[in-house]
């Protein structure tokens, strides 16, 4: 016990040291703002309604939870109001009917909302965004209809009246503290491994899975965390209100929270709070205008929210926080693009004489009557670059997908180090050292180049779970710093050190493909499956890729290269396998294959290898 206390104390002291070293003027300003906000109940004039502000904090808390799902997970959930309702009515029923104290009732409410999140999330996280929106919208309606139909649960038109609890001022301070904590945790998650992986999975799920990201698990985690935070916010807000009112948890609440996230800006964890504040300001202004016409603003609240959403979308979906940051120039500093650094490595060829790492044994894949891969076998040994070439539709990419576990073969098997991989999914294969890059999607465009590599490094994280990352434990921080340093070093190795903090989407196409290769390398593969990495590249770019692949081979990596650039193939490949119509028609050294009459007829034509 003493040791635990000492360890915790040490960790806290270390965290404090880290915080001090990273402290900037901006942090001082933010801390001062929070401190000033905490004083509001004591110093605010009478026209400031502390209870409304406290309720705003709880709404912002729920919206921050939703941000995890929408911004990080890329799931447009319209169901956060339902989780607030679950939290609210759990607290109301336990305190008003069962006489429970507020604290345990609130904890049960969080658990109930999380359980609801698990049930709903298990079904929705694998859906496409539009279906996620529809499904969660139906969930919101289902909860609303349930509450309105079962008046014994919801208390009917008069609601469920809660026993009096903590004061409005205490709610205010609690709401503020929880909101600050939620924003910090959300920001920490977004910056850490789980957040980066979620953002990657949001953009190109297949590429993320190929790099070993447990896409469904991460998304479910975000959904459940979001639901739990919604339940907490609902449970506390209902205590502040003093009455649980089913009509408050209709579809408009979910819509409003969703709008708040988009209005504030999905790029920042502060966005939802800014969005709630923005909605409150607009509603207040509408109230003043409405009073001039004798119309209650509540009559057109939903319309205002919808108009704000349209405005945000029409302006590019940026939102308040990113807009403010741009205006104050925080994002203005751009790195200087440097001339590509071609890494020069002696292209020593070491033909495979060792036992194979990867074996494809008679792999067959059919799509209806089409045989995309017809009993194809191949082997890869350490330090070998094997090129897979052939005309379009010959089955090259199908083979890569079979090897990476994207497709289940109709026949044959894949072995790594002699062990049959069976139906192991891409993540599991990546963990065993078989990593693939995609043909069409180069890199995760919304992530920086560095973050792209951190996605690949996810498999190396031992202390990078969501909880440790959210609370920035010493081990998680230490590991994250180490991985970031490794990622920078790897980026420098491929000549993109200057682009570490540049969004990959802003890089040129060949640079993006290089980032994708580097991300795959970051996963620490023994077998690298590359799908047309030189597509659209200039001669310089191809030379750079050539040098990189040659160096990897020297380092002992096995590479299966699907490629149309025959110059690159001839330069880098130890062995070439030629496919046509799903079958292997030739195999051998580049020179052997170049002289093969069948290959010339089926693929090369006038081209020379």
């Amino acid at each position, binding site marked *: 016990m003493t040791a635990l206390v000492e360890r915790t104390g040490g960790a806290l002291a270390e965290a404090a040291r880290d915080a001090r070293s990273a402290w900037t003027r901006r942090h001082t300003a933010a801390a001062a703002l929070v401190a000033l906000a905490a004083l509001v109940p004591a110093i605010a*004039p009478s026209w400031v309604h502390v209870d409304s502000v406290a309720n705003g904090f709880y709404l912002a808390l729920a919206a921050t939870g939703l941000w995890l799902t929408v911004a990080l997970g890329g799931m447009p959930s319209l169901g956060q109001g339902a989780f607030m309702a679950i939290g609210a009515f759990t607290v109301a029923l336990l305190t008003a009917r069962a006489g429970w104290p507020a604290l345990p009732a609130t904890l049960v409410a969080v658990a109930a909302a999380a359980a609801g999140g698990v049930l709903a999330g298990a079904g929705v996280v694998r859906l496409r965004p539009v279906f996620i929106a529809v499904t969660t919208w139906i969930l919101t309606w289902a909860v609303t209809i349930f509450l309105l139909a079962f008046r014994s649960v919801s208390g009917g038109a*008069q609601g469920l009246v809660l026993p009096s609890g903590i004061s409005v001022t205490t709610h205010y301070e609690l709401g503020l503290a929880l909101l600050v904590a939620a924003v910090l945790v959300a920001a920490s998650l977004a910056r850490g491994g789980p957040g980066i992986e979620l953002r990657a999975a949001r953009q190109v799920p297949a590429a993320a899975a190929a790099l070993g990201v447990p896409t469904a698990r991460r998304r479910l985690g975000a959904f459940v965390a979001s639901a739990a935070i919604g339940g907490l916010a609902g449970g506390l807000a209902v205590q502040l209100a*003093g009455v649980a*009112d089913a009509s408050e948890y209709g579809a408009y609440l979910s819509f409003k929270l969703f709008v708040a996230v988009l209005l504030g800006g999905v790029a920042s964890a502060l966005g939802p709070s800014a969005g709630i504040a923005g909605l409150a300001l607009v509603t207040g202004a509408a109230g003043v205008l409405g009073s001039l016409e004798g119309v209650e603003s509540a009559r057109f609240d939903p319309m205002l929210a919808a108009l704000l959403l349209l405005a945000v979308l029409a302006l590019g979906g940026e939102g308040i926080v990113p807009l403010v940051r741009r205006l104050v120039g925080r994002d203005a500093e751009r790195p200087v693009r440097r001339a590509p650094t071609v890494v020069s490595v002696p292209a020593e060829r070491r033909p495979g004489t060792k036992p194979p790492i990867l074996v494809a044994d008679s792999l067959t894949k059919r799509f209806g009557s089409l045989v995309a891969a017809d009993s194809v076998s191949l082997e890869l040994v350490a330090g070998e670059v094997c090129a897979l070439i052939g005309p379009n539709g010959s089955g090259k990419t199908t083979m890569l997908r079979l090897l990476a576990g994207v497709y289940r073969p109709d026949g044959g098997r894949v072995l790594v180090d002699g062990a049959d991989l069976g139906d192991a999914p891409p993540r599991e294969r990546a963990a065993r050292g078989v990593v693939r890059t995609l043909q069409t999607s180069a890199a995760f465009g919304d992530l920086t180049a560095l973050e792209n590599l951190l996605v690949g490094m996810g498999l190396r994280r031992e202390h990078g779970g969501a909880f440790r990352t959210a609370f920035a434990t010493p081990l998680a921080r230490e590991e994250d710093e180490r991985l970031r340093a490794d990622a920078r070093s790897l980026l420098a190795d491929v000549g993109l050190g200057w682009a570490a903090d540049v969004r990959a989407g802003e890089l040129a196409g060949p640079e993006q493909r290089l980032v994708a290769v580097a991300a795959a390398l970051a996963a620490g593969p023994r077998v690298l499956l590359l799908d047309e990495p030189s597509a659209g590249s200039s001669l310089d770019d191809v030379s750079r890729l050539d040098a990189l692949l040659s160096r990897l081979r020297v380092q002992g990596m096995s590479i299966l290269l699907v490629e149309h650039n025959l110059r690159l193939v001839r330069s880098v490949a130890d062995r070439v396998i030629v496919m046509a119509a799903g079958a292997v028609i030739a195999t051998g050294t580049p020179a052997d294959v170049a002289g093969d009459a069948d290959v010339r007829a089926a693929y090369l034509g006038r081209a020379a290898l």
Partner: protein
Amino acid sequence: MKRTALLLAVLALAGCGGGDKKSAGKLVIAVDAPFSRSQYIGQTIARGAELAASEVNVGGIPTPDGNYTIEVKRYDNALSPRKALSNIRRAISDGAVAIVDDGTGVDAGWQAANEAHVPIGITYDGGGGLVDLEKRPNVYRIAPTNRGIAFRLAEYTIPKGLKLALIHDDTTYGQQGGASLDEAFSRNPGSVATKLTVPAGDSDLSPQVLRARRAGATALLVWGQASTIAKVVIAARSAGWNVPIYATPSAEDPVLRQQLADRPQWLDGLTFATGRMTAELGPDFFYAFESKFENAYGVQNVGVRTRGGDAVIAPPDYAMYSYDFVNVLTQALKQFGVKDVVKGLEQVTARGANGDERGFNQHNHDGVVDDDVFFARFHDMTYAPVADDPLSSTLPTIKQTR
């Protein structure tokens, strides 16, 4: 730094000013009503209170604490108990001496008001349990009670030997009314052919009305929103089923007549129970009130015409209740002052808009007794008291055309 300190000091001083009930000789009366969700109800309640306040302010209110005028402040509860509770708290912090309420959120808000010694006057919702002398000493009501309406309906229909289909919709109003009807008819189950709950949102209630017919009903009694009553009438009459139809005060709502404007003959004969607009002293008091109301706010057009082409108007009968509550409150303030107004309300009366003495006592916080419920029957888009009820037959018909 100095500037910041000065600003904080100013803000702190400004924060010390709230919560005083007396504000420059003005007493605040809060009207908590669903202005955004049921504008007609909200406006009716607020206008009644504002009309009374404008009359009181001519001479002011001499109280033991000084002379005051009344300021009426509106708070929109949007039919939400959460907003209603928030409004009640806000009204108290704004220094309200009383709250005029449609009834929304009284379950949640009476306690906060009671702790601040602020009475709540319900002027619309007749739901059971809202007024409770023992548990809610600060809650009063001037509006027909559901219980009173249900018992009067039972008293009126049972002697006719009818077999009634008791129909209520699934709104709170309908559900509460259904419970009151159950209680009222519990001693005469033989008068009830069937009980049905119908969805307020359905566009066609023909299946439910057919079920009532097959159950052997010889009359329909509908407790629900005006649109529900209209749908029941349409379903029965379009099927050629010309049974008597009885309804509740919501039948007065212009919506019913608007929805039946194309077939006014289907509305003819529909009988409903509501609070009476006139007392034993005749209709002059109500006409005087109606005249003042129209001078202040204009006539309330129903939006339909009689067969003769006259525009039909709605008498401001529900505005009468909030008007009366403010007048009773004024008497209590005059005699007992702000601090004792909750108990003071039990000991005063005032002349109501219909000429009745309005007031409460230690044994009753409901200002409209069961005898104040009468029956009216529609004919040619207007309604008149029925002749086959002892109370109703004595009442004059209020003019409803212009």
